[in-house]
């Protein structure tokens, strides 16, 4: 019987291949109209949201509200609630992490929407419903990592 592709070939050296690449290796994303304000807010150590006609403040701000009208930038203050979380033990390449990372999905008490961010909470204390607050870095550049973590 001739070699068929379903016979397992584990090594690239055993088969004829044509190597290829895709040169679009970099993207430049703009944060958008209200997203630019959001970025500036982070630089100032604030989390900005968008106030809509329904009276709610949505985070992050997307320029348009769920009802399709344009929102107004408003600061979001107060506590955030852990809606769910996970604990990361391995990185993308399968390396074991000495210090596991805790990632949470967090919702502002005074707003709608939410953010995903690191949690600096001992693993034995972390739980759904926990209230946390953002901790900003000293040196800020205007991106999401200006928030060091929530705790």
């Amino acid at each position: 019987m001739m070699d068929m592709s379903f016979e397992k070939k584990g090594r690239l050296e055993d088969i004829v291949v044509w190597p290829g690449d895709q040169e679009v290796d970099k993207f430049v994303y703009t944060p958008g109209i209200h997203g630019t304000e959001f970025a500036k807010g982070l630089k100032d150590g604030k989390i900005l949201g968008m106030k809509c006609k329904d009276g709610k403040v949505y985070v992050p701000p997307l320029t348009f509200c769920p009802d399709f009208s344009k929102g107004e930038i408003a600061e979001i203050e107060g506590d955030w609630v852990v809606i769910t979380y996970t604990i990361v033990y391995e990185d993308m390449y399968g390396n074991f992490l000495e210090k596991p990372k805790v990632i949470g999905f967090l919702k502002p008490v005074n707003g709608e929407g939410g953010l995903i961010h690191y949690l600096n909470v001992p693993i034995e204390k972390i739980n759904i419903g926990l209230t946390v607050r953002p901790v900003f870095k000293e040196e800020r550049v205007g991106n999401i990592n200006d928030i060091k973590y929530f705790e």
Partner: protein
Amino acid sequence: MRPNIFMKDRVAIVGAGITKFMRRSLETPRELAWEAATQALDSAGLTLKDIDCVVTGSAPDTFDGVHFKGEYIADGSGGISKPITRVYVGGGTGVFIPDAGFWHVASGLCKKVLVLGEEKMSPAHPHPQYVFKYIWDPILERPLEPNLIWIFAMEMRRYMTKCGAQKEDIALVSVKNKRNALDHPSALIPANITVEDVLNSELLVWPVNLLDISPVTDGAVALVMTSEDVARKLTDTPVWVDGIGFTLENQHWYNRELSFPRYLNYAARMAYKMAGIERPWKEIDVAEPYDPFDYKELHHIEGLMLARPCEAWKLVKEGYFNRDGELPTSPSGGLLGVGNPIAAAGVMKVAELYWQLRYEAGKRQVKKAVHKAVANAWGDLMQAGTVIVLSN
């Protein structure tokens, strides 16, 4: 003659909206979509709550750099908690979106459909042109380091030789479209240029010079399509969709006569048959043929049977396709003048015909009376043809 097309509802276009076409927009793809969608809804006198279904289209995810673009732009397209579909046939997507909007309404499935095309090409670096490289065969062609313009250059050369057209004849299309675009508020590269300017612009891939090509663009365009009963309540001047066509020619471009676009001709015949049009060269009053390159407009005029094969370049010299000519083509300014945000560009062409048929095109309004109009787009590995026929 109308064939048996099993339509539950006759389909109308009742609103249109368009963003500015830009080289590097601050807006995110979702925000571009929202701008066009809100404009289209406002112009139709509707709100998002009235919309039953949403049809969106966008070309490769690699441009915007988000690998679920249909869902990514869904909230800006008004598609949250509604049946939403994304269609994609490369550059042909722009006209395929209203084609898909048509079958949503004609089938009776939805009464009011928001139809939207979005493209943000500027995020891809070092240049969005590289994205097009991956449409070539990875085994036989990519090792030669091709780019998209190779295809067009070879097709253009074939057309020139088969049809006896010179570079300066073809350049007239670029001159016409960029001039038409001077009156389009969304236009990215409108200009008053001469044939000499085109011939003397940077030579990229012979015979294609820089001014023969449409630019990299960000933008979005939306339409509102409804059934007849809804349209009659909303407006006294709905624009009707009389026919749609979409076909694929052979899979690869080796076995194809490049001087005549059969991929388009098949789609055009399908749309004309549905619309009951037997002599398009006499019955069509205004057209928006797809013009990513200047010779492509001539190619598509012939594929749409608005001129005989190899005769479009002669007619363009006589001013036949000018805004005040016998059969105006690309009165909007086309992709060459308004810009080419891939999927949005085709919807821009359909929006232009909508405004022309309602006599709302302002300074762009063609001189003659208009009743029937046709637009097309073209894409995938250059073999997908999409067509729409409209009337007032």
